[in-house]
């Protein structure tokens, strides 16, 4: 379980808080969808969870560990899949997996688990930069799985891939949750959230504006998740 309580963060010189009194609970073995417009605070939340960013106030517990006291141990139990393709394009997929596996304290068994889960077996000798977009996303996920983590943080893991690869990735994530892995999933694709997540939270301007089981939130009269999202976050674009 991941438990976040009263988490706040304001960047130096910023007019408003990036995260403002955010509280969330993500149950073990569930896929939790975190939605929000650009700049809502999703990446800030994930950066704090991975210890990349310092929080101002609040309490975060990952399993039985406290982020304040046990960051190195938490990092060992978390698999992080950033939005970027965070591997070395000039190395082969196999070399990337071996290097990151050693860094994760993993073993050959865990490399096999990652390769099988992401179905990369036929591409291990190929330079990572020459893989197709879908395979690169699968490699990105496979590296995140190397330490056989209990918790998986996925930051828009399906950006720029075709429907087949998206389908594969979502199925894989559901399967991982069924194996007991707790997943925090951020994306802009509403259909992915509907297919993958049991519970969601919508983050806007650093605050949680809706949170609960997906079915409960959709029962408020909106036609679908996108309609609910636009009703709560307004229609205006956020990048202007």
């Amino acid at each position, binding site marked *: 379980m991941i438990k976040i309580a009263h988490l706040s963060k304001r960047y130096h010189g910023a007019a408003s808080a990036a995260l403002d009194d955010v509280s969330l609970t993500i149950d073990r073995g569930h896929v939790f969808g975190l939605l929000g417009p650009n700049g809502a605070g999703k990446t800030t939340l994930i950066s704090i969870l*991975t*210890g*990349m960013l310092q929080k101002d106030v609040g309490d975060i517990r990952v399993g039985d560990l406290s982020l304040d006291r046990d960051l*190195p141990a938490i*990092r*060992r139990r*978390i698999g*992080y899949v*950033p*939005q*970027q*393709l*965070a*591997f*070395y*394009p*000039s*190395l082969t997929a196999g*070399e990337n997996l*071996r*290097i*990151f596996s*050693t*860094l*994760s*304290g993993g073993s050959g068994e865990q490399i096999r688990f990652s390769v099988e889960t992401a179905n990369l077996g036929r591409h291990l000798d190929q330079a990572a930069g020459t893989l197709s977009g879908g395979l690169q996303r699968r490699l990105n996920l496979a*590296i995140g799985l190397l330490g056989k983590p209990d918790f998986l943080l996925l930051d828009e893991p399906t950006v720029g891939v075709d429907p087949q690869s998206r389908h594969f990735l979502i199925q894989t994530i559901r399967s991982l949750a069924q194996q007991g892995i707790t997943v925090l999933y951020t994306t802009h694709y509403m259909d992915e959230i509907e297919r993958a997540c049991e519970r969601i939270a919508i983050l806007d301007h650093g605050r949680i504006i809706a949170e609960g089981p997906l079915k409960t939130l959709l029962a408020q009269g909106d036609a679908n998740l996108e309609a609910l999202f636009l009703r709560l976050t307004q229609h205006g674009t956020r990048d202007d």
Partner: protein
Amino acid sequence: MARFLALCSKELLLLLRDKHGLLVLFVVPASFILIMSLALQDAFNPQSMLRIHVAISNLDGGQLSHTLEKALRESPGLEITATGDAQVHVRILKGFSELLATRYDFADDYIQGESEPTLLQVSYSPGIPPQLKAAVALTLRQVVQSVQSDYLLETVLGYPRDKIRLLRYVNDPRHLPIAENFVAQNGHRMQAPTSVQQNVPAWLIFAIFFTVIPLATTFVIERGQGSLLRLRALNVTAVELFASKALPYYIVNMVQMLLMLAIGIWLVPLLGGDRLTLGQSPAGLWLIGSATSFAAISLALLVAVVVRTTVQATIAGGAISLILAALGGIMVPKMVMPPAMQRLTEISPMAWSLDGFWAIVLRQGGWQDVLPQAGMLMLFGLLSLTFAGYFYRHHQ
């Protein structure tokens, strides 16, 4: 330890697959060593420095003009050549022989301020260095004076020829009994410095400092594509990260050193250049090479954490290396710089390193003799590393 080795092997693999990086680190400096050692070979050879190509036009045709022409041909500093190839064109003007033979008759007039008629007209090509121009002028004056004094002694004063030969011998500066040699730091006599001994250490140092470009570029790419983020999420600390980059590049720098020294020892002589002599202290070479590597890698890490794009990394890395090289006597030997510029070289770590290498290969010193230069380089490296660490934490 396994984590550190994994990071190091990652860095080595990235470098081995970076063709441009390898080109910059190995092929470019090796080419510079070959080109510059051969091109500057004559500049370091006092004999060949004075081989000036001179064309002679004898418009006089008299006996003394022929004697002068013969004396110029025999002059060791001059190479008589066709007009088109000449750096200096000497015209023996009409009336030369008669004027030289009778010049003493008019000595009183000349002393009282009458202007003397011109004997020779000397034209210099615009590209001739001032030192060579002065050397040619001196040689011409000596040869003309010698021809004239021989004529006066023999014809006017009636000296016998064998006496004149003796006089000529003792007056020739080349026959003065002066012993010249180069003395090493330890007091032992050593060989004259050659172009290869200037250029091999110089371009080796340049190559080591060019580490800045591939190291900084790789770092920027890692940061841009999120690998650095992932490494941090895997508990990789700044110390681990920096050390795992430093060790592979240190190995690369040592390979560069061995390769460049080998080129100086074996390849340059095959192409007609001088052979590099290494001195007597492998430990001293290793020490100054290692200190240079540490300074260069630390500077590379500083550049890496400060710049934001690969273009910035390439431009900043290249510009810093070129400026330090130009200042440090790498591109232009310090010995040919004016005194003010020679003092300015002392601000460049490349100059400290070059001085350290020369302490071994030129001055035949031991490892103790490079301690001051190695110390300065280590200090420079530590300062760069401190700033790199500060900026890394600050930017992240």
